[in-house]
């Protein structure tokens, strides 16, 4: 029970298999004629340690896709392989439990794994330290700002000792400056911990800032339109010219997609 979880993680992962693999995944909500095709034959993979951003206009089924990978919902057709990897997820809202302190919220992630209370507390403090919230363990979620709460949420996701981190527009509701800082933080944590990340956003620059690849989804139904590799050196800046250039190209492609629905 007290063995460091990181080591266990490493033994779970075999060779060069992708961390997440979707094969011909479709999702239909409802039935028969009234059924809504949310995702249509989506195939996608996130490599071990890869940071993949998924981009699309509204109605492209981004969130649906994450829910499927997280196991919150099951696909109508196709296969999702995560090869026994542990999966953590962050939402647009922090989704913290208001009846628990910040520290206890992080500890919740270790409860299911049966970690002893004392160790949970020690480790929660460490995870909070990672997101620079060391001194805030005894606060209640509502006493923190939106950005801080989202960092607690990140700490909680990290505490799950997951190999795969799914993120559903986690910084969408934050101001630009906080978001920039959190991008840097996320990048650092991702690199240090060798996470595989699938990050959903509708912010093109954010996708280019963070992703090794940017996958563009079409809307209604969601399909993979294009897969842009981003080979810029890290760390990148959201405001840099290189990021802007690639973002411009992707935005152009996104516009074409959106216009298809206007006619």
């Amino acid at each position, binding site marked *: 029970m007290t063995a460091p979880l990181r080591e266990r993680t490493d033994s779970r992962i075999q060779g060069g298999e992708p961390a997440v693999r979707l094969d011909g995944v479709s999702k239909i909500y409802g039935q028969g004629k009234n059924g809504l095709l949310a995702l249509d034959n989506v195939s996608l993979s996130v490599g071990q340690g890869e940071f993949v951003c998924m981009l699309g206009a509204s109605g492209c089924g981004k969130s649906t896709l994450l829910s499927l990978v*997280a196991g919150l919902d099951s696909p109508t057709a196709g296969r999702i392989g995560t090869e026994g990897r542990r999966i953590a997820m962050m939402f647009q809202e922090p989704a913290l439990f208001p*009846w628990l302190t910040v520290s206890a919220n992080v500890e919740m992630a270790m409860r*299911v794994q049966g970690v002893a209370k004392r160790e949970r507390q020690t480790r929660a403090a460490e995870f909070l330290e990672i997101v620079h919230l060391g001194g805030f363990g005894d606060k209640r979620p509502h006493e*923190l700002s939106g950005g801080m709460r989202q960092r607690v949420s990140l700490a909680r996701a990290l505490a799950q000792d997951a190999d795969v981190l799914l993120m559903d527009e986690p910084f969408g509701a934050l101001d630009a400056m906080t978001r920039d800082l959190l991008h*840097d933080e996320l990048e650092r944590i991702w690199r240090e911990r060798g996470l595989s990340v699938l990050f959903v956003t509708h912010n093109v620059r954010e996708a280019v800032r963070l992703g090794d690849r940017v996958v563009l989804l079409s809307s209604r139904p969601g399909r993979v339109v294009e897969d842009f590799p981003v080979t810029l050196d890290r*760390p990148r800046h959201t405001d840099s010219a290189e990021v802007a250039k690639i973002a411009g190209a992707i935005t152009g492609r996104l516009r074409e997609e959106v216009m298809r629905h206007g006619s």
Partner: protein
Amino acid sequence: MAVDQATPDTHARQLAGLDALELGGGTRGGLAPRIWGRVWPMVLAVGMVVAIWQAVVWAGFWPDYVFAGPAEVVPVLGDRLTSGEYWEAIGVTMRRAVTGFAVSVLVGLVLGALVSRIRVLRAAFGSLITGLQTMPSIAWFPLAILLFGLTESAITFVVILGAAPSIANGLIGGVDYTPPILLRAGHVLGFRRLQLYRHVILPASLPSFLAGLKQGWAFAWRSLMAGELVVIIAHQSSLGERLYYDRELADSAGLLATMIVILIIGIGVDLLFETADNSLRRRWGLQQVRN
């Protein structure tokens, strides 16, 4: 903004700076002003009620021996509150209230937990529980007396029937309105079924459960008073029984004095619930902005 060279250290400092800016200090006032802020409106309200009461007495709609004024009732109240016998009556009533309410909480909890958790039970009993809530508790007494005779069990039985449905409904409502995002978060964290229920759904339903408790208390108190008026048990004086005999003896001042005691106990317990509710709201960050 020049963050060209963002070392980890400047990062941490920037984050700390933003955090400090965001956390504007919201301080609560001291205890004494807070209590005073609550007390003076109450004192004012009591003053107004007493004034109206006195005005009605002076208006002379009823003779003095039928409707006593504050000037007569207050001394009677003082006399009673200094007699051990009266405190015994209060003690009997409070014992019944506390045991009845405690059993109601237990029944309500079990009932609410089962009905909110098991779909078939929900379909079968969900609306029945709400129906029971609307049933006037006094309507149960004839049956209760048939079943248990003129005993304390008859009173407790009706108190439980009055309070338990509200408590169960509070829990059921809380479970139903658990924010979906918290359910999703719990699911992602690996909680399933019973664990999800215990660690996420039950705590999330606490505010609604507390509201159910408060309402349950109100129903329990009402049922108890009705019961003590109807079910008079020999050699066991209680508040309701005192009320009954005061009317029999046409002791207007005594009757009003006992009514005041009943009112004060009701308000006092309600304040306890309100305090619990406020502290929960403060901890959860649910309190309203007051101006």
